């Protein structure tokens, strides 16, 4: 991998780019520092979607976020997919490329979901090797995101955060830390979300996701169709206390409100970050 190994820049507070907001983004001057674009929405597309993406990439920093890398799959790496991903990256020059620590299918089938797996040494060896190969192909480090999970497996040999930490170290990749996903998984599996946050390597986290979810009483489903709840904001605060300033974005994939509503929600993140990071700096100075 000959590409830059430098830590990507801090971008501030961003939103996921959604087609519903194209006009508002291009016609106005939304208080959004950067946009995350879903790689698959543009990698095969020309016409209006690609034209608008190019315009937005000229005006805002963008990062590419994929859902189909399937890094944990035992299927062969999809070189055609990686080639298209690389072409898109060459064109829009994202600040970084991310995807999820999960698999999406085997035997030629794609389930279009972010699927869990047992945290075993076998999985670690397999995925670390694939991350290295992907990074070599893309000629850059990628960021991997922790996913929301609804089941865990008897065969797991370590916690999720132990697995992520060792993977990031061995593959020398970045992390995209999804605060909401930790909240969801911690509730579903009955562990302390703060233990997860304490357990990941802070220096490798280059981006945070915050999002809403659907609480079913006995379990939580990561739907990205609600406002962010107070508990997730509390965890966001805790995350910043632990790892310091990190580019943050709100993910909203369903029941998408007008852009201004998301910009207002982004202001909550800005305020929390300002207060938390000031207190953190004060504490550090006092020490």
């Amino acid at each position, binding site marked *: 991998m000959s590409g830059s190994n430098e830590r990507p820049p801090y971008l501030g507070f961003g939103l996921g780019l959604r087609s519903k907001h194209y006009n508002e983004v291009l016609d106005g001057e939304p208080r959004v520092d950067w946009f995350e674009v879903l790689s698959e929405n543009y990698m095969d597309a020309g016409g209006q979607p*690609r034209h608008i993406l190019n315009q937005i990439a000229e005006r805002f920093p963008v990062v590419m976020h994929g859902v189909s890398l399937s890094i944990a799959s035992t299927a062969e790496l999809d070189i055609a997919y990686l080639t298209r991903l690389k072409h898109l990256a060459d064109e829009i020059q994202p600040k970084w490329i991310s995807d999820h620590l999960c698999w999406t299918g085997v035997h030629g*089938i794609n389930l*279009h979901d972010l699927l869990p797996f047992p945290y075993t040494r076998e*999985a670690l060896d397999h995925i670390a090797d694939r991350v290295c190969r992907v990074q070599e192909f893309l000629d850059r480090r990628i960021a991997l995101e922790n996913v929301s999970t609804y089941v865990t497996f008897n065969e797991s040999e370590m916690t999720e955060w132990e697995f992520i930490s060792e993977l990031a170290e061995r593959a020398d990749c970045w992390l995209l830390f999804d605060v909401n996903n930790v909240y969801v998984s911690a509730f579903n599996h009955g562990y302390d979300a703060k233990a997860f946050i304490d357990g990941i390597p802070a220096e490798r986290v280059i981006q945070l996701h915050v999002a809403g979810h659907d609480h079913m009483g006995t379990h939580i489903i990561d739907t990205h169709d609600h406002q962010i709840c107070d508990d997730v904001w509390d965890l966001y605060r805790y995350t910043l206390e632990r790892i310091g300033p990190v580019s943050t974005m709100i993910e909203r994939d369903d029941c998408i409100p007008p852009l201004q509503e998301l910009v207002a929600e982004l202001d909550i993140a800005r305020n929390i970050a300002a207060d938390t990071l000031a207190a953190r700096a004060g504490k550090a100075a006092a020490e």
Partner: protein
Amino acid sequence: MTTLAEFQAKLQQAIVDGDNQVLDQIASSPREEKSTLLGVYQNAYVSRLFDALAEDYEKLAALLGDQQFDVVARHYITANPSRSPNLRWFGQAFPEFLRAISPYCESSVLAELATLESALNDVFDAEDAPRLELQELAEIAPEHWPDLSFESHPAVRRFDHGTNAVEIWRALDADSTLPEPADLDEPINLIAFRPEFTARFREMSPAEATIWDAAAAGARFADICELLEAYDNTDDAAPAAAGFLRGWIEAGFLTKATLPASRQSTTS
């Protein structure tokens, strides 16, 4: 101990086929039954594919109504698991499915409405490519014209209808009274295309459709003229063929005109 590959095959089987053998490997949860939690993945799988189909074929879904579309979509999901990393392509085989599988094939209007929606979706975000310009043709010496061949722009789709699916599409688009599905006396020839960034379609006369199909398949201009001569029963169809060609170029249907290697060539 199960290997990662074996585990993934089992979980996939549970999600796609509902075979829950993988439950043995799932750890007990503090608050909920394992089968319910596995069900989150099983439900999400169908729901995500269903939503993709409903979005791509919103007029067909409106024509069928929620209940019938649900049945058709679930049948398709079972018969055609996604094989692309991009959900955008999941519904590509839906028109063919409706054309081939009973009972849907018994009402041709369903497949034809789906074909129209699929064509419009395809041309909307088809890959970009240069458009052939009239000026480029003007620069070609007349003696070379018979050997010219053409390449269709990626944002063009040609298809024929034997039913009033277009009329139904227009009624659904305008939210006006739906006509009853019916067969047409004569089939119509259609082409979907993308001027600027909007997907459109228009009808082609049988003669225009015939020579377009030949041109898009790589026929030389001389062959196109010959086809048109036979069609129109005339001795010289070159002016008429050139007229069609001009219309195609102005509408952005073509990306390239090429001469054989032995001749001077032009590409856009």
